[in-house]
Every structure is written in C-alpha cells, then in structure tokens.
C-alpha cells in the first residue's frame, strides 16, 4: 500500500495532496458542465491544457500525445456535427455524437484523476485527509477506492485470459460468461482486501488517536499559485453560469 503507482522523482510540480484534490474537483465540475457560456468554454480549454501540462511534467510524453490527439479529433468531430455536414439522426452521426460527447466530458477528467493517482502516495493521501479533519470512516474507504481501480483492471484482464483459454466467452453464453467473470473477480478482490487489512494493521491504522506521518505535508509557493488559479476559475465559472 505504498504508492498508488510509481511517480516521477524529478517532476517540477510537487503539489500538496489537498491542492491536487481541489484541482480535481474544480476541473471535474467545469468539464462536465453543459453550459454553453463562452466564459466557461474558455475555462474548459484552459483546463484541458493544464491537464496536458501536468502529464508532460510527469514525463509521460506518449500519453500526452495520445491525449491531445484524441481530444483534438473530438473537437473536429464536434465542429463537423455543428456545421451539419453529417445528419445528427443518421447512424454515423449518432455514433460520432456519442464518441464526441464522451471524449469531451470524460477524457480530461480521467487524465486528471490519473495524474492525481500516479503522483500521490497512499500515506500522503491519508496524512492530508487527516489534516483536513476527515474521519477515518471516510479516509480509509477513499484510499482503498483510489488504490483499487488499477488492481481491479489487472485482475480482470488475468481472468479474461483464463476464460479465453477455456472458451467461455460473453458472446456464446451471456449468463455463464458474466458468472465466470464476476465470481472469480469478487473472490480475488476479497482476498486482496484481507491482505490489505493485515497490512493496515501493521501500519498502525487500527490504533486510536492521531497518527504521525513520515510524509511531509504542507503548502509551498506552488500550492498558493494553484489556489490562486482555482479561486479565479471559480469566479469565472460562477459568472459564466449566471450570465448563461
């Protein structure tokens, strides 16, 4: 339960976990809003570029390129749909709409969430939540949730391989296909949960009282800069919503 996954040691950006959570929240809220206000559209572009900047800072060049290309393709798709060269009711137009909608609303959020997951250690996250006076009943499930998505994907792909070897496919028999995927997945996930509980105990999570942490949590100049950006963004977002 050490790191969510290995981060980059020589990255320029080194935010406090609280700052990252705030950024995640504001970027999410803005990107999923359906408002057509020009102010909010501008804000969306700024955030898309900001997320790109975070990815580049992590030295994930390949990922950044893929992210930007998919997003730009979606923008082009959006433009084609608005210009009306493809009918929105035709099958092609409908599929294009769905893809564009998903990419524009989800991709930047997912990339931001990925950035937060890959640059935050679990112990940093727990220490930060404790500083914000969140009770353990919220902190621990949240930490588990964040840590678990990659694990779940790994487990599922192994099970998928095993089922392929046994010729149990979702296409031939949906019911047994679902059963033979879900049951092993749940079994392995519960086993991992037991292991995590043991690990948590050795780390002293079960004891009462405030924990001390090896991780240094605190705001630096970077964090204050980020907070300024967040404050300005909230202002723009609210003005955009009011003006419509």
């Amino acid at each position, binding site marked *: 339960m050490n790191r969510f996954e290995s981060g980059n040691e020589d990255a320029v950006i080194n935010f406090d976990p609280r700052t990252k959570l705030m950024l*995640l*929240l504001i970027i*999410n809220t803005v990107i*999923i809003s*359906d408002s*057509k206000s020009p102010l909010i559209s501008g804000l969306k572009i700024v955030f898309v570029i900001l997320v790109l900047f975070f990815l580049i800072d992590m030295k994930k060049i390949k990922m950044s390129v893929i992210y930007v290309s998919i997003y730009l393709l979606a923008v082009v798709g959006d433009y084609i749909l*608005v210009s009306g060269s493809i009918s*929105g*009711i035709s099958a092609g*137009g*409908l599929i294009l*709409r*769905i893809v*564009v*909608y998903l990419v524009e*609303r*989800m991709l930047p*959020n997912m990339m931001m969430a990925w950035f937060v997951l890959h640059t935050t250690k679990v112990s940093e996250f727990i220490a930060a939540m404790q500083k914000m006076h969140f009770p*353990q*009943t*919220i902190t*621990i*499930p*949240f*930490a*588990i*949730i964040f840590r*678990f*998505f990659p694990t*779940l994907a790994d487990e599922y792909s192994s099970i998928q391989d095993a089922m392929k070897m046994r010729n149990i496919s979702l296409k031939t028999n949906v019911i047994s296909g*679902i*059963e033979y995927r*879900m*049951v092993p*997945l*749940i*079994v392995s*996930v*519960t*086993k*991992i*949960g037991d292991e*995590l*509980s043991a690990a*948590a*105990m050795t780390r002293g*999570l*079960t*004891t*009462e009282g405030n924990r001390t942490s090896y991780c240094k949590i605190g705001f630096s100049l970077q964090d204050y800069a980020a907070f300024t950006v967040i404050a300005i963004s909230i202002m723009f977002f609210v003005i955009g919503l009011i003006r419509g």
Partner: protein
Amino acid sequence: MSTAVKELKMNTAVAEENGKMTVKDLITIGIFTVLYFVIFFISAMTGMVPIMAIFYPALIAFLAGIPCILFFTKVKKFGMVTIMATLSAVLLALMGYGYMGIITGLILGLIADLILKSGQYKSSVKMIISYVVFSEWVIGTQLPMFIGGNAYAEAFRETQGDAFVDELEKLISWGMCGIVIVTTLVAAIIGALIGKAVLRKHFERAGIV
C-alpha cells in the same frame, strides 16, 4: 506477547463489542464500492440509448446483486451500507451524474442499514428487502431529469442529437418515474435472489463469506 500487540487486540475487541467499525470493515466498504462503481458505470453507459437512459437503475440493480449481497452478508455494523451508498454517489457525482444522488444515497443507505439492523444482520429476507431499498438510490441520479422535464432534455440537443432528445422527451413524466421505481424494485429482487444463489454455489464453498 508484546504490550503493543496486546493493546491492538484489545482495541479491536473493544471496537467489535461497541459495534464500532474496524479498519477491516472500512476496507471492505472501499472494495465493494469500487466493484459497485464499475458495474454502475458499465450499466449507465447503456443510457446512450434513450430508453435505457430511463431504465438503467433496473439494470444496475440486477447486475449488482451478486457483489452487493456478498457485501451485505459481510456487514455486521450499523452505517456500512450508508457509507458505501454515499461514497458511490459522490464518485458518480464527480463523473457527471448530478449531486441529487448523494442525498438519496445517504437517506436510502440509512434506511437499508436500519432494515439490516432490525434483522440482527442475519435475516436473509431482511437482507433482500434492504438491497431493494438500497438499489432505489440510483433514481436520485435521474431526479434532475424528472424535475426539469423537457427543459432538461433540451439541454442535450446539442451534444446528444435530435433523435435522442425527441425520444427522451416522450419518456419523461412522473408516471414514468413510478414505473422506473417499480422495475428497479423487481430487478433488485431478482438480482438479490441470483446473488443469494451464487453466494451458496460459490462463495460459501470458497470460504469467503
């Protein structure tokens, strides 16, 4: 035995007796929230088809039966279902399913917890009833649609297309909301029964209940 280990065991024992949640319970909540979230997300994707944009709560209630019934058998403390429902709702609000779900998640999670508690966390029937109540929270993610009516659907004309919006407008009404609640109820009962059967067939044998 060192004093630290003794103390730890005592703490855990005290927590068990008080009915306070232990870290193990919290980890269980986290794991099953993830499983539930994934099932929710896959099912809700079918909402791209107008009819499923109305009926996805039923699909979720049906598919989530297996993991949720296993989770409910692991629940032995008051509040675990509430936390799970609320956390799922918060995660889904972040994905764009609206903030109304957090309220329904909190309220219905609490009721589900109360039902489980009234059965001393042992009664199978209470467990199924509790799961049915819990499943209905998903309607909360649709409430903005039923409250806003056609104005809500119009907002999607740009992004989702005319065909989608026209179909959706035909479907939105409070009567439809009632139908969704009933279908979700039925689907949840079926899902819970399947969950029970799978529990007996696989999980009890594997010793993970």
